[in-house]
């Protein structure tokens, strides 16, 4: 029988990493016909990236439509869209070669909008600039706050952007804007973004859109694709397959 799509997509990923960055186009796709709103992606991401309370890179929104007994339920996971025209980058005051956020063109992260925590001044301007609310300020909270003890796993490093970010005191990224980065550090290691690799419904796809052999490209080609907030002209890199019109649900 066929391989699990997680294995197939990982093979696609490894193949894509052999290519020069400029000929590669990372994209994510979520098939909402499969998504069950379980939030494995949300929590997997929280744990992978050591996200503090009430800060989610990939929330999942619930929608109910219709009247009993003709009803429907839909779930929309919303990572960062890694827009090709990212309003958050425009809004960031820290620009230039030392900028805090930009549309990456080089390396593994080409196509991704990273945040350089060292350069981010914590002004928060990027937050309202994002039409998807995909950025959140890290206020330095801990999950075990208010209990008898702060637990060690919370202070140990996250590996975002291929570096170690121990979480304590005022260490970055505390005070910074935070957002999804397609788990760039995992891509570099030949692994899928956490949200994709822990999707128990296999609703998530990730890969190089330019590689017609990739599962992502196959699925994208075979289905009608929607994007969120098309009218904003942000050119997202995250696609959706859905029976419903997402502009009706998501706005």
């Amino acid at each position, binding site marked *: 029988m066929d391989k699990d799509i997680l294995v197939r997509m990982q093979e696609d990923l490894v193949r894509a990493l052999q290519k020069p960055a400029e000929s590669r186009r990372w994209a994510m796709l979520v098939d909402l016909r499969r998504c069950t709103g379980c939030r494995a992606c949300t929590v997997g991401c929280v744990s992978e990236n050591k996200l503090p309370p009430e800060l989610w890179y990939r929330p999942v929104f619930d929608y109910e439509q219709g009247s009993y007994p003709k009803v429907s339920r839909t779930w929309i996971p919303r990572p960062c869209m890694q827009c090709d025209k990212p309003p958050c980058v425009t809004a960031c005051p820290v620009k230039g070669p030392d900028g805090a956020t930009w549309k990456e063109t080089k390396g593994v992260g080409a196509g991704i909008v990273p945040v350089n925590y060292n350069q981010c001044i914590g002004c928060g301007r990027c937050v309202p600039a994002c039409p998807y609310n995909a950025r959140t300020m890290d206020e330095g909270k801990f999950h075990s706050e208010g209990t008898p003890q702060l637990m060690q796993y919370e202070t140990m490093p996250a590996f975002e952007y291929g570096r170690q970010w121990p979480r304590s005191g005022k260490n970055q990224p505390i005070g910074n804007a935070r957002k999804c980065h397609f788990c760039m550090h995992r891509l*570099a290691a030949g692994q899928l973004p956490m949200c994709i690799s822990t999707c128990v419904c*296999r609703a998530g796809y990730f890969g190089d859109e330019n590689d017609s052999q990739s599962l992502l490209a196959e699925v994208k080609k075979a289905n009608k694709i929607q994007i969120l907030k098309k009218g904003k002209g942000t050119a997202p890199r995250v696609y959706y397959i859905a029976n419903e019109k997402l502009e009706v649900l998501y706005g």
Partner: protein
Amino acid sequence: MAKKPTTMAPETTVDKGVSRRDFLRTSALVGCGAMVASQLDFARGLIARVEAGELTPAEAYELLKAENTLYTVCLNCNTGCGIKVKILQGVAVKIDGNPYNPFTLFPHLPMSESMDNAVKVDGAICPKGQAGHQGAYDPYRIRKVLKRAGKRGEGKWQTVPFDQAISEIVNGGLLFKHVAGEENRQVAGLKELYALTDPKIYEEMAKDVAALRKKKTAEDKQKAIAEFKVKHALNLDKLIDPDHPDFGPRNNQFVYMWGRKKGGRSDFSKRFYETFGTVNGHGHTTVCQGSLYFACKAMSEQYAGDTFKDGQKFYWQADTENSEYVIFVGANLIDGNYGPSNRNPRTIPQIAAGKLKVTVIDPRFTKMAAKAQRWVPVKPGTDAAFALGMTRWILENQRFDARYLANANKAAAAGDKESTWTNSAWLVKLDDKGTPGAFLRAHEIGLKDKETRKDKDGKEFNFEYLVAMVNGQPVAFDPNDDKEAVKGELFVTTELKDKEGKPVKVKSGFQIMLEAAQEKTISQYAEICGSDVATIEAVAKEFTSHGKKACVDIHRGPAQHTNGFYNIASLMNLNLLVGNFDWTGGMIAASTWNTDGTKTDKQPFSFKKITPKAGKPFGLSIIRHDAKFEESTLFTGKESYPARRNWWPLASDVYEEIIPSCLEAYPYPTKALFSYMAAPTYALPAGQTNIAALADLDKLPLYFASDILVGSTSMYADYIFPDLHYLERWEFQGSHPNMPVKVQPVRQPVIASLNEIVTVFGEAQPISYETVWLALAEKLGLPGFGPTGFGEGQAFTRPDDLYIRMVANIATDGKEPVADASTAEIELFLKSRKHLPKNVFDPERWQAITAAAWPKVVTVLNRGGRFATQEESFKGDHVANKYGKLINMYQEKTAKCKDAFTGKPFHGMARFTPIVDTLGKEPTELSAGYDLHLVTQRDNLMTKSRTITHPYLTDLLPENGIVIHASDAKRLGLKTGDQVRVVSATNLAGEWDLGNGNKKAMIGTVKVTETIRPGVITFTLGHGHWATGASDVTIDDQLIKGDPRRAAGVHANAAMWIDPNLKNTCMIDKVGGSVSFYDTKVKLVKV
């Protein structure tokens, strides 16, 4: 510093930002090491160096290193998915799926795949699994033994040395003289209850009690009791009550109960309580889906000689990866139900691709319903009506698999390439009122005589042939005969003659099914379940349009009612009508690699052989399971009905009856109770009844618990022993019926425990569940434990002494053992566990124990268990791991049991029965004035008792709500966000009475929806805690404040009906044992 973006003015941010930026530049130099500044450098960081080949990915990303990765098994729900735990500096920092385990990857990696490759592949697991390490690092975990310093449940504790606690529990005494009112309360210790110890006397008494139970009249029983007293005069003091020898020895007054427990730990405790000699080891099955288990047990009883026995406590589920149509009834595998990591990838993509059609029968529009083609929102508790409507249509329209059903025995089945067969064509005798009873035996009509046969051990047994009608003539057959095929007629109603020529009225099993289905019209069934004829017929037609690839997959929805047993049997019988068992896409059963070494002679440790012969426990259990009331010394004749409490000839592990039976001392008083990972007060419907019972010092003089924190039930204990978290310990998870692959996932310590290290049998070990058993065994001098526990030179002094032997058995089971680990793999095995202390990880000891099997043991532990391949799991049109036996459509054993309250026999054929209390009364009085039907639901983010300690989860679901249909909300003037109190006829105050004057109101937040049947309300289980870190406790006079997040939301179980007759437990299914979870009518009172 950082502000909430919504309240932030851009001008001020720039100003603030500049200073912030300067600050960060400074702090980066001082505190954060070599952080680089430029964009280019940022992109040229570790990732770029990996790209340039300067570093390997694992060097850049420590979570990718094989030496930082261990494979074990989750337990945040009972699915028990394989997990891959990523460990840094000895701390579990990230959990993903184990790619070797088919529960997280579909298909999974074969065991031959190298560890280096496997480490790169993360399997998919659910959010509870992802958050699992938060349970291990819960700040509220206890590390030392707590002893009660106040009243039970008062929340006052003192830490005591482990040895002291064990000594006190074994020796008894004035254990609580420091507590006001208990100065003179003498507590009996286990030593006093370890009364009967001689295996010979055990055997002799047990034999005599068994004979006594078979006496037909009260007089005969009395005579037998008198004889018993004479014969056993010297040992009568060892009995609970010499006038009732069937109560058994005083050893039975030690009652042990558990919540979530899997293989390994089960074997551990069983070894103890069976050697100790108590019959009272009881699980929690009936709070989950007992009537599902026990209805399937009844269906799986095998005809052995002249009677039915060896039914399996199990059930079947659908092989959804190959099914074309599945009806899920009260089964939401996306949020619970042995899912989702294993079931979703085998179900959801298939639905999305149009390969699988689904109908959901459920009053809730579950996530599963959201993915289904059809939703049938039936009224709760009427599932059998829908099933019988379908049955009637299928039978009357000849849509059943007649070829399959006609097979009366194994040979006939084999001829049709069927591995299972039914008793549809067998003839059943009717009594003078026409009620079906036992199957006709061939000798009764002079057709074929009884035989004396020998079993495989050479033991003789009586064999009686059964009868089917073939071409209008009765034919004798052996149902297990694999040579002479007998195919019987399906619809038979006739009269035969016995040996004396007297008439014997008979019907075939299938005819009885037809008549049961015809008790009502399809229209009447539709009326009962709140559906319509067209829907019932359409579902029946669809179900019978896919050959063997259609299933009815059931979970706790239909089971947890007072009519649960017959709901389940009615639904499961539908699967028999299409004969889908063991077929790909049909109903399948779980299969596992063996742990106890009794499967093959290549397994090194047969526990049968290395367990000392102790007296087999005998006597009635405190819950009266596997026992008929009529056979007990408490039954003196028809005037004994109704029994004081129920008896359970067909069920066991009747959770709701354990503590209330202790309270009533029925059938006898309990002296000591031990609970493990159990929260009946929280988990049971009307769980508050258990709280009241646990407070009773006379009826429960000693109560000790094993728990990882002060839990919602263990808070009432006299002692709490800290247990290990699932990341710190062993267990063998087994499998679930939806998994076609043969597996045995091994849970093993992957992080060290912070629990106090104690010495038992001279071995240092962290306090755990096992340590308690070992220490009790040491103190009591129980055989089978200690330096010669497994035989001469074979110590059983640490938990792993048992578990490593079981791993060796797993590794060597089957036709071929697993492959030996290479030297490199053994090195990795050691390196990846270097953070574990010797008291839990002792490779030299393990190697010495397992000897030649050691490299195979390493192979299994390195992969978190043993797993067959996907390819091995199917053979042509069938699953490879077959059930392969008779499945009863008509249940003779059930028909031979009586209701202990009414004295009426149970139905042998499934049918619709109404919701009733123990006296058989429909709850019209309890319902009057209560307009809403209360059910519950699971959310994938929560399990009942343990996920509230996981902030990654509660952060997403800070509270649950009372989910109500918009029309009901409108009628009651409620809107989303309103606070309401849940009130029922048996909980007028709408609150939990926690004892000691503490109450917790059942007040929840309204959530209005269209996604539920009007008239029904539901809430998600797992919130509304009062312990488990939710409330303050005092330990050694130090106040530990609770976390209010854990108290959030509502837990409405206390509103669920208390049985009006029993008065101290919830309503129950008298046949299958299930608690009534979904029968209560409530009202909502706006706060």
